[in-house]
């Protein structure tokens, strides 16, 4: 924050109703954050009423499933939308778009998040893992995925990607849970087929598969 005084000064110079782009960039750099692309900061032009496809978008690079993916992303765009409609990763489902059902759960830096309630611009320098990135590139399923196949977990499976991602994230913090603990870990996910018992059995099998795989 060594430059903050200087920034204060500059910001104070700016007219009160507009933001100086130059100063903001300085401010951000001063904050010690790596600026990975021009999209980091936005000009203070009004976007309202300019909702055309490309207006107001910015090219962004995000790390998804271990790959750097570039996309044109609007400011207000959610990660779920970018994944599904810009990057073609439709395994992440939108069940409620209000952070209530968990269908859109992805891992961001290994932590489960509702992708419907994260702005894509917030994950710029973080690692996103979706259901598509879980299996190995050769197609070997993740132990939790295999657990679901072993137990015929889930029915309609619309909630499945979210449940699997939530449990993969939870198992990183508690690899040997009881049924009750795992239920608590995936409790942010809703299944309307209400196959909770079989889901839990399948995810427990997945946890067991994981432990077995790591013991090998």
């Amino acid at each position, binding site marked *: *924050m060594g430059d*903050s005084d200087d*920034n*204060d000064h500059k*910001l*104070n110079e*700016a007219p*009160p*109703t*507009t*933001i100086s782009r130059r100063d*903001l960039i300085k*401010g*951000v750099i*001063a*904050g*010690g*954050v790596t600026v990975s692309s021009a999209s*980091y*900061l*936005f000009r*203070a032009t*009004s*976007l*309202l009423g*300019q*909702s055309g496809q490309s207006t*107001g978008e910015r090219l962004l690079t995000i790390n998804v499933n271990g790959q750097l993916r570039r996309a044109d992303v*609007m*400011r*207000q765009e*959610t990660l779920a939308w970018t994944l599904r409609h810009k990057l073609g990763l439709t395994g992440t489902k939108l069940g409620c*778009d*209000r*952070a*209530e059902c*968990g269908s859109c*759960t992805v891992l961001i830096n290994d*932590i*489960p*998040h*509702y992708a*419907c*309630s*994260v*702005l894509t*611009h*917030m994950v710029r320098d973080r690692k996103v893992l979706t259901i598509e990135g879980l299996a190995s590139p050769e197609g070997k399923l993740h132990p939790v995925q295999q657990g679901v196949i072993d137990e015929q977990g889930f029915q309609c499976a619309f909630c499945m990607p979210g449940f699997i991602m*939530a449990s993969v994230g*939870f198992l990183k913090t508690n690899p040997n849970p009881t049924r009750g603990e795992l239920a*608590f*870990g*995936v*409790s*942010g996910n809703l299944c309307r087929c209400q196959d909770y018992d079989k889901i839990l059995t399948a995810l427990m099998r997945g946890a067991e598969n994981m432990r077995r795989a790591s013991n090998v």
Partner: protein
Amino acid sequence: MAVIRDVMPAFELLQPSSIVDAQKLLQQQGRDAWVLAGGMDSFDWLKDRIKKPKVVVDLSGIAELKGIRATSDGIEIGAMTTLTEVVQHPVIKEKFKVLAESAELVASPQIRNQGTLGGNVSQDARCWYYRAGWPCYRADGNICYADTPEGRNREHAILHAERCVAVNPSDTAPALIALDAKFVIRTSKGERVIDAEDYFVGPDIDITSLHVLKPGELLTAIRIPSAWAGAQFYFEKVRDRNVWDFPLLNVASAMVVSNGTIERIRIAVNGAAARPLRLKAVEDAVRGKAANAATGTMAGKLAVEGAVPLQFNAYKIPLMRNLVKRAIGGVEEATWTS
């Protein structure tokens, strides 16, 4: 003009990396700016297109707002610290367990992974009329739809209602009041530190906000003094669903008991009024009394004095009475094993 309750409106997104920058931006933007912490409350307002700010200021890039630090007297929790971090922090678990317990009962794991402590205490009311975008008092209108002859008000206030009958839905707020936490507010003039209970405001004073922050002000940290470290804590939240639900009522207390006598106590409930209520009268009445069921029963009765039920929320009176009773007198646990 027709209404649609879907699709986030376009806005400018500003992502400052320091409190100073954030504050400048907020002051420049004034009422046009929307502060985004974890976003778990904000995105509802935006996606429902009820709020259409020109500018959203995202605080997630400000490192100084995050993390839990030891201070000379207790700990300081950055306002942008996630609830999961609060739940898992060893010092909080060991010394201020009531906060960890309350944070762990907030919504769902994913929400706790993203929602922040500052956001949790600053969240808006969940009255369904207000959230539907109806022009009620809280939305600067001139009516409370919940407090009408047929209004549906099962989740609403039994105490201190004034035109608006919405309640504060935060789970961590009463725990922080019980811990005598201090809220650090950055204003244009500098830093202001206030008691936890003074952070919250009722409709009699401000009917459009649940807290005292003015545009341009930021809650930067919450300090927990060591005075209550390791005290005897109680937290209980009663909700309809066992996950992703707001409290019908919750209670948090911190007691220091020696030789069976209550030496010191702080107790607060939420879900009963538009602000979390610190029960000072209860504290005064039980101080020096035995920490037992009889004191709890007396405290419970005292706590609900003056409560006024609406048409559908009378249950909150016995519920609050019993929760306060349990917080002080303990719960008589079942003895069966399976």
